[in-house]
């Protein structure tokens, strides 16, 4: 019997190729419950307007303006060809500046940020809670999700309302991804333990929005406590017939959307397509919880759970942090750095991005702040030549040949990348980690992908130019043949007119008339009149 189909999703587990069994350091940060004490207000919040995938939002506030907690600072704007998302004030206070600041981004470049000085009152705008969301229409619900500025909190930060809008009608399964597979990160696990009801309520709202009967919450095998808590919540909310918790084996990068779908259904998302094409929508568990807050409490997304961890932190723990909080404030809340501190990372150790400073803010994508010591990162490794050992091939969950890809990219043979399916690379970093030569493979792949994109654009442009040229040529040729055809037709018409005598007589008459009219006609005017008659 073939278990690998969407109908049987979640009933039998499947494998994905490759992957890494990594030592986990989750207990470092999630053995303790959330701190009773809240993170104190920061003096200043740095709120980037581009925290999501897509266009930066349009700023609707100006320096000097007083704002309240939860007030929109920027909106997606109208041109909706590219996605955008709302950004809100994390507390009440004054907008002191709108300027370029460094933000957590792989490029390390600056980006437009709204600087908000807190007034300490923490005054909410008027919230619009909903007593019974079942009364709301699908569009109303999606609009509330949009107004709350909700984006995918697993790290991809794609605007959730657009995902819901696109998926409505064609989705039959919602997967809530709680399979946090990066070592160290435990914010989703903490959320599932502390606030399982929020997630399940979010799931129920989502099942109404998508009009579906099947929601799977995927968690990692060892998350026993989460499993119990989620099950209890499902029971109390009476959602047992629609929501199921599935435990998947712990293997990096299990939490990758495409890998999770493969594990649950045994089928792969076709290349170049989105899971929606298979009737599956994947959202992070934290996103579901944020949707509950947005719909039921009317609260926009202004805070998130952040794992602050690593050997470089004195008291590793999970903290609810407002978006825009300088990372340094979080660090001091967690007891500060240990003496061996060497580097700061946003995200997990495999896909996280190195940060240049702790003055950078927490953004919607910040699931983890990882402080590493010298012992964790060891001395910078010398890059050795590839010895073709094939370890990277063995761990690649996308079925690629990383060693061949890096060779091809080094040789700048970008045409070959398509054939080698570089586009299937999810940049999980398995190959990078396993490589005995310490070749920064993912960096090569990002470079290769950007070159591929540039080439595609260039090719499109040149194709377009060629198309235009070809069309022009065709048009000209067509005009020419048409002109000739007209010419010929007229000639034939003239030659073929049977009444020759009539035409001769008419011509004579015309000539006579002309002579009478213009006695001093120059010779060339004859031809003029001739052609005038012809046309």
């Amino acid at each position, binding site marked *: 019997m073939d278990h690998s189909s969407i109908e049987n999703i979640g009933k039998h587990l499947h494998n994905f190729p490759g992957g890494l069994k990594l030592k986990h350091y989750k207990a470092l940060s999630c053995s303790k419950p959330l701190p009773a004490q809240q993170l104190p207000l920061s003096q200043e919040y740095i709120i980037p307007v581009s925290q999501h995938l897509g266009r930066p939002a349009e700023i609707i506030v100006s320096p000097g303006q007083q704002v309240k907690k939860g007030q929109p600072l920027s909106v997606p704007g109208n041109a909706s060809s590219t996605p955008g998302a709302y950004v809100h004030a994390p507390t009440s206070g004054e907008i002191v500046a709108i300027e370029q600041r460094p933000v957590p981004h792989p490029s390390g470049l600056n980006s437009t940020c709204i600087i908000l000085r807190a007034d300490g009152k923490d005054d909410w705008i008027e919230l619009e809670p909903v007593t019974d969301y079942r009364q709301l229409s699908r569009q109303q619900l999606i609009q509330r999700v949009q107004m709350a500025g909700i984006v995918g909190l697993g790290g991809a930060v794609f605007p959730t309302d657009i995902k819901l809008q696109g998926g409505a009608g064609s989705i039959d399964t919602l997967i809530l991804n709680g399979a946090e597979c990066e070592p160290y990160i435990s914010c989703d696990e903490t959320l599932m333990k502390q606030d399982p009801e929020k997630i399940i309520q979010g799931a129920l709202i989502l099942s109404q929005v998508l009009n579906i009967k099947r929601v799977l919450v995927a968690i990692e095998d060892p998350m026993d406590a989460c499993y119990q808590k989620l099950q209890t919540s499902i029971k109390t909310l009476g959602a047992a017939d629609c929501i199921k918790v599935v435990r998947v084996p712990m293997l990096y990068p299990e939490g990758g959307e495409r890998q999770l779908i493969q594990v649950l259904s045994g089928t792969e998302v076709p290349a170049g397509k989105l899971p929606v094409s298979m009737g599956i929508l994947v959202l992070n568990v934290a996103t579901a919880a944020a949707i509950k807050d947005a719909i039921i409490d009317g609260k926009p997304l202004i805070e998130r759970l952040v794992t602050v961890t690593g050997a470089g932190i004195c008291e590793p723990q999970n903290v609810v942090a407002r978006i825009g909080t300088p990372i340094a404030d979080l660090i001091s809340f967690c007891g500060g750095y240990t003496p061996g501190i060497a*580097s700061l990372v946003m995200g997990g150790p495999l896909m996280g991005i190195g940060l240049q400073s702790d003055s950078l803010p927490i953004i919607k994508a910040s699931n983890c702040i990882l402080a590493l010591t010298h012992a964790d990162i*060891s001395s910078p490794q010398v890059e050795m030549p590839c010895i073709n*050992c094939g370890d990277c091939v063995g761990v690649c969950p996308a079925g690629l040949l990383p060693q061949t890809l890096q060779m091809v990219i080094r040789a700048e043979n970008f045409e070959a990348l398509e054939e080698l399916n570089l586009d299937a690379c999810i940049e999980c*970093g398995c190959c990078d980690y396993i490589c*005995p030569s*310490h070749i920064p493979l993912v960096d090569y792949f990002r470079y290769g992908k950007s070159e591929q994109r540039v080439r595609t654009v260039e090719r499109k442009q040149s194709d377009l130019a060629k198309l235009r040229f070809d069309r022009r040529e065709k048009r000209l040729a067509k005009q020419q043949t048409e002109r000739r055809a007209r010419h010929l037709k007229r000639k034939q018409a003239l030659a073929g007119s049977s009444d020759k005598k009539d035409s001769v007589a008419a011509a004579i008459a015309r000539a006579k008339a002309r002579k009478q009219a213009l006695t001093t006609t120059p010779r060339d005017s004859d031809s003029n009149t001739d052609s005038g008659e012809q046309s």
Partner: protein
Amino acid sequence: MEFSRSGAPHLPPENTVSKVMLQVILALIPGILAMVWFFGVGVLIQIALSILFAVLLEWAMLKLRGKPIRPFLSDYSAVVTAILFALCIPPLAPWWISLVGMIAAIVVAKHLYGGLGQNIFNPAMVAYVVVLIAFPLELTRWLAPRGLIDVELLPGLLQSLQTIISGLPANLSWDAITQATPLDLLKDGVEQNQMISEIRQAPVFGNYGGRGWEWIANFFALGGIWLIWRRVISWHIPVAIIASVIMITLPAWLYDPSSNPIPLQHIFSGALVLCAFFIATDPVTGCASRRGKIIFGLGVAILTLTIRLWGGYPDGVAFAVLLMNMFAPLIDRYTRPRAYGKPR
């Protein structure tokens, strides 16, 4: 607080090239000790000589090519090449055999092709083939294994050193201490239409392979299995080679055991086990994908048997490996795994 930005992964690396090579060296030790037991300390002298030449030549070539010395000398790849070569030549071969071999391996096969990771041919096998063709006489002087000659005739440390450096001492003769290898005898015997059972009467044969050789092969296999367990090498190539040899020779032996040797004989004589675990598994010159490795192993097995049966040399593993090295890129090209989401 400011930090220097580092790229992912932010974890200490699990592996390094030198760690890989060191584990290979470690895994060779049981087999080397077995060889020393059966053939005397000459084995160790050859290993030391080859390593010395290899490291000197590696250093000189890195210098000439303007490459950093330290990281490349400490990757131990030259040492592995030297040991594998030294295990293939007779224990009392003259010192210049090692020198010529290492020039062929390190200078020609490795650095002239672009150094570590760039060579097309397995350097140790290039070296072996060069000396095999250039100095056939020296390469046939295999000592008789312990148990076949008087223990007092087995050359000691000083005698071995003397022989390797300045030739055989006057009180010894090559005839007294050397003997045709089992594969030599087998080849000659079959060519003279002798029955296998007749050929195997010779004392140089052991229980299933060559006397001594079969034990050496066992110990190399032990090291090889440890490498598989440590995930330094994958099982695909060794299993493909050994299984292919058995599957190809089994029908012939079943059909006519009097003129075809038992499959185990093929495996436990010559350098087949050493090749299966340590030589054909050289990643640089082999295949990277799993299916590719199996095809590579199958090719090595077929070519080895072809050369053993019909070729001019008693053992064919070196030629087989070099020939398959040429095919490796093509095999990799056609055994590409299917990428995620692409049509089957």
